[in-house]
């Protein structure tokens, strides 16, 4: 039986995710009136790389036919099957050392603007690289990993009815002796776990789980990103609401060694965000501008050595909170994109010491670039 997940209407043609509860896999299918998932592939040269766990690679953003023209070929995937990474044609013809940008959305189920933004981000990158030379250049040097919904179970639960809409945590069964479902995934990462800003009551919304990394959603991220820490330039985790850019750490007595740089890069991003629609985003550590917390994905990323790690708290400041009206999706995403791009540009330029635009033929550049952009949907068999 396929359980249909409702589709957010960010773009006119949407991709719908259906869950096959029999096989425990997520299948991407076409819905009536929508085109199916399109994965852009440039050529058949494969790199040998496999992964030790189940990774479902998908493009949530619909690429309509007109955008696809000029690209070599498209492939529609049967997502009832497992697909190893190398099938998606990871390209690196010059054997260049590519660095990594990580972005995840939807750790907290009710923060709907976050998965919407991940979709927007992918769409924006894929549709603007042709006219944006700087972006074009950066994508030659960077692999960008985007996970649109970390907390799949929680997110799907918020779509059930208006009463479930306000759910925050995952939907995991509690350990025996505990009565309530779900763990606050952003308190479950292995980063000063269980020290501040958490509850050990399974019924609480900041319940951090029975131990660090007890939750498959968190371990999926830690395992996957953990393997590429050395080449990861920045880790962006997207939430709402509050209009904040949070830097590590959530513990009031721990400071990152590059605190000053984190602040200045964060403030530059906030300045870019404000230019678009006048919305102010405050920059600081969580204990400074929000509340202390532990076990967050942002803190984990910084602790394992990713130099730039930020939590984005998108719109608004309390009028609607996470029930953000649909007419704010586009402006919220536009400003978030500006902020994310500002940080990505900074870390790219810092790593590659460059400002020069390469003179490679556009089509050649396009080939490398497109294949370096992947949308990653992380899950495990336990989740589905």
């Amino acid at each position, binding site marked *: 039986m396929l359980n249909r997940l409702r589709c957010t209407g960010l773009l006119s043609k949407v991709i719908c995710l259906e869950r096959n509860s029999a096989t425990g896999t997520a299948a991407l299918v076409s819905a009536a009136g929508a085109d199916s998932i399109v994965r852009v592939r440039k050529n058949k040269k494969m790199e040998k790389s496999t992964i030790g766990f189940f990774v479902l690679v998908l493009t949530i953003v619909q690429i309509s036919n007109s955008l696809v023209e000029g690209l070599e070929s498209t492939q529609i995937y049967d997502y009832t099957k497992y697909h190893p990474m190398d099938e998606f044609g990871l390209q690196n013809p010059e054997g260049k050392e590519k660095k990594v940008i990580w972005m995840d959305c939807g750790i907290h189920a009710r923060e709907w603007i976050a998965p919407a933004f991940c979709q927007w981000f992918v769409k924006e990158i894929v549709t603007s690289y042709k006219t944006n030379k700087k972006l074009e250049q950066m994508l030659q040097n960077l692999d960008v990993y985007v996970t649109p919904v970390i907390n799949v179970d929680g997110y799907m639960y918020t779509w059930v009815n208006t009463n479930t809409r306000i759910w925050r945590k995952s939907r995991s069964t509690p350990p025996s002796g505990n009565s309530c479902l779900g763990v606050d995934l952003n308190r479950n990462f292995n980063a000063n776990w269980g020290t501040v800003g958490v509850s050990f009551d399974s019924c609480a919304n*900041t319940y951090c789980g029975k131990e660090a990394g007890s939750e498959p959603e968190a371990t999926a991220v830690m395992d996957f990103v953990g393997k590429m820490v050395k080449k990861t330039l920045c880790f962006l985790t997207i939430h709402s609401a509050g209009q904040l850019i949070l830097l590590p750490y959530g513990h009031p007595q721990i400071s990152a060694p590059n605190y000053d740089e984190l602040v200045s890069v964060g403030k530059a991003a906030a300045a870019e965000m404000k230019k678009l629609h006048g919305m102010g985003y405050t920059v600081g550590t969580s204990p400074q501008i929000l509340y202390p917390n532990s076990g967050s994905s942002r803190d984990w990323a910084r602790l394992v050595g990713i130099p730039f790690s930020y939590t984005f708290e998108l719109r608004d400041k309390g009028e609607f909170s996470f029930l953000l009206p649909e007419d704010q999706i586009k402006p919220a995403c536009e400003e978030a994109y500006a902020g994310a791009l500002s940080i990505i540009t900074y870390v790219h330029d810092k790593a590659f010491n460059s400002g020069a635009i390469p003179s490679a033929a556009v089509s050649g550049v396009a080939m490398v670039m497109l294949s370096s952009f992947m949308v990653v949907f992380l899950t495990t068999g336990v989740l589905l």
Partner: protein
Amino acid sequence: MATGELNPNHYQAQRAAKVVEHYLNTRYGSPYRLLGLHRVHSGNAEDVEDSGRKYQLEISVQEIISNTTEKCSAEVLFPRGGQQRSPQVQASCEELLKINTTAQEEALYQQYKMTQSLLSAHNLPDSYGHIDPDMKPFWHLCIVASSFIMLNESSENTLYNMAQVANITQLATENHQLTFDCHVLLHEMVSQEIIHWKLLFTWSPPEGVKVQQMEQLPHCHDCEKPPNTN
């Protein structure tokens, strides 16, 4: 706890300023006047012996519907002591009162005072953040009524917003006051909890919002329906 001059962007000043927002809504809020904290310009905190902690704030407050902003000074005292008491607020934002909402309020009052069928609505906003334009004044009314609760419940360790009106039901008009029963969901930022409250309140243009009864509903962790639904 920080004492003396506060960073206006940090949580201490922000939480105290939010309390001022709730206070101002209890004083000046109406179906056509809703106040929101815009910015904190400066803040100062000091311990007051035997009383608690006092915050002095310079803030900007925005009237959300007309999108006008005003600078205000405010003082918030968070009481200390065995008995849990609500914060005491002193603030004046006189300019905001000058926003003329009389005609609209009177029209709304007359429309719903005379109506044969009593108003009933739920999920304001709905899951998509949508509120029917005709229902917006009642969403505002519930925010104002909720502000009495949020003001009462606030401390230095909380930050409240009203997340949603689960339902609002109009009851028979009494003493020329429109009367409403409202079930609201409050979001508390620090604990990230959603807290359900039921309110009985009245409103008229001259009297403003007056809360008759308020009752916190039990926490329902895994509800498919809100608790005590009719």
